């Protein structure tokens, strides 16, 4: 199984930029209505565990939060590789640098270009790790925060977002022909605040098999993955 965990991938943007690889056989919006806030760590932890983790993850220490493997759907697989997923194998150093630059931008101490450069550099690192892992494990999760990180400072700049979505569509294109179940999922969507981008409830999912999911909750994928591993959808 391959899971592309794409932070802030937004259904409307996927359609707008006509990302054919991301829009697999079945695609649509995820239901985030049982969450008070669209917090990245909370949503990924909830995706992994199948439970709403909002109350269990305090805001102040959220980036350090890690879910034990026994609580995640990963326990259903013999082997796994999870690249950079928040609440599991988050690359702390990379993301701390990103957040530092984000803060510096708001304090007028760094430019958008400096920030973007680091985001793209980290993205390329994850892409390399992800493509290296594909085919070597029962499940590979590749996490990419490009749409979220670039979007926060530049969601209103169409050319930039087109480049981001083109890149993410290309990553999806790399795995689309493999003989494996492919799930593309985002934690939340994004909406414009002038040139900036704020989290929205317009999350995205797509599957390379038509399972007829209807507005699925992000927590419902835990059970779906379990059933796929147990060959219910074979």
């Amino acid at each position, binding site marked *: 199984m391959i899971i592309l965990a794409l932070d802030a991938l937004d259904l409307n943007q996927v359609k707008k930029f006509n990302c054919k690889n991301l829009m697999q056989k079945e695609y649509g919006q995820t239901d985030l209505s049982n969450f008070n*806030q*669209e*917090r*990245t*760590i909370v949503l990924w932890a909830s995706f992994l565990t199948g439970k709403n983790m909002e109350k269990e993850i305090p*805001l*102040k220490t*959220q*980036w350090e939060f890690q879910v034990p493997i026994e609580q995640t759907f990963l326990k259903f697989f013999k082997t796994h590789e999870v690249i950079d997923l928040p609440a599991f194998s988050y690359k702390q150093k990379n993301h701390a640098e990103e*957040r530092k630059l*984000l*803060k510096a931008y*708001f304090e*007028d101490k760094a430019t958008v270009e400096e920030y973007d450069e680091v985001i793209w550099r980290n993205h390329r690192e994850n892409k390399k790790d992800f493509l290296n892992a594909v085919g070597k494990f029962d499940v590979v999760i590749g996490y990419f925060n490009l749409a979220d990180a670039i979007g*926060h400072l530049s969601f*209103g700049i169409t050319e930039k977002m087109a480049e981001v979505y083109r890149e993410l569509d290309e990553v999806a294109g790399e795995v689309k022909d493999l003989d494996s179940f492919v799930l593309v999922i985002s934690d939340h969507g994004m909406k414009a*605040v*002038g*040139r*900036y981008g*704020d*989290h929205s409830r317009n999350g995205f999912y797509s599957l390379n098999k038509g399972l007829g999911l209807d507005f699925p909750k992000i927590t419902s994928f835990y059970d779906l993955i379990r059933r796929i591993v147990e060959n219910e959808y074979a």
Partner: protein
Amino acid sequence: MENHLRELEKKSIAIIREAKAQFKNLAVLWSTGKDSTAALWLCKKAFFGKIPFPVIHIDTSYKFPEMYAFRDNIAKEWGFNLIIAKNERALKEGLSPEKGRLKCCTELKTEALKNLIKERKFDALILAIRRDEHGIRAKERYYSPRDENFRWNYKDQPAELWDLYVKPSEDYSHMRVHPILHWTELDVWRYVKEEGLPVNPLYFAKDGKRYRSLGCMPCTVPIPSTAKTIDEIIKEIETSKIPERAGRAQDKEKAYMMQKLRSLGYM
């Protein structure tokens, strides 16, 4: 006057007169910057030298001394009814940009204006915003209805065809009227020159810097410039690739975004 400026002025004056005819209790906002001073001049011209409604200045108490001096001189010279609005409660509590720029802006500008509207029951306000200032302002209409919390639904605005500005019959608290919405920064400066309007000295270069947009002192920085006359300013803007509000350290969007990212734990 060159034809282009004459056309701009004609349209603006028509909008101002239309607003005066349509609303019971109109006022004009004046920051003392170039745009609102030009709008004030248009109000004066529209009614043959005397502005027939109050002029509101929102005083955050953090403006430049030159802005206060300019305000008092013009008010005296042009002889209009000036209302100075302050959020005294927030100022007494010691609110300042250090306590959060968004909060400071909201309390000292928005709340001060909200209170004044409530107290004086204004049903329409003339504002000197322009479409070319900012992306979101490009979506504005000449008549822009607001609710009691100053919210504006840009996705639900009536068309303004054939220069017909119609106020909605209900569902709004007050109307924003934007008579110079169609002007550009260059148009304003050319008009200032043409009409010989007074200019705040902060706009002219001193020691290699000048203010291109005026706001509160702690949140506004000058841009590098050698333009010491209106002609030089016009020449500078004609070739400049720097946005007009680049010197405004924190616009509302940026401040909002910073606050939002904080609440999500990013900072």
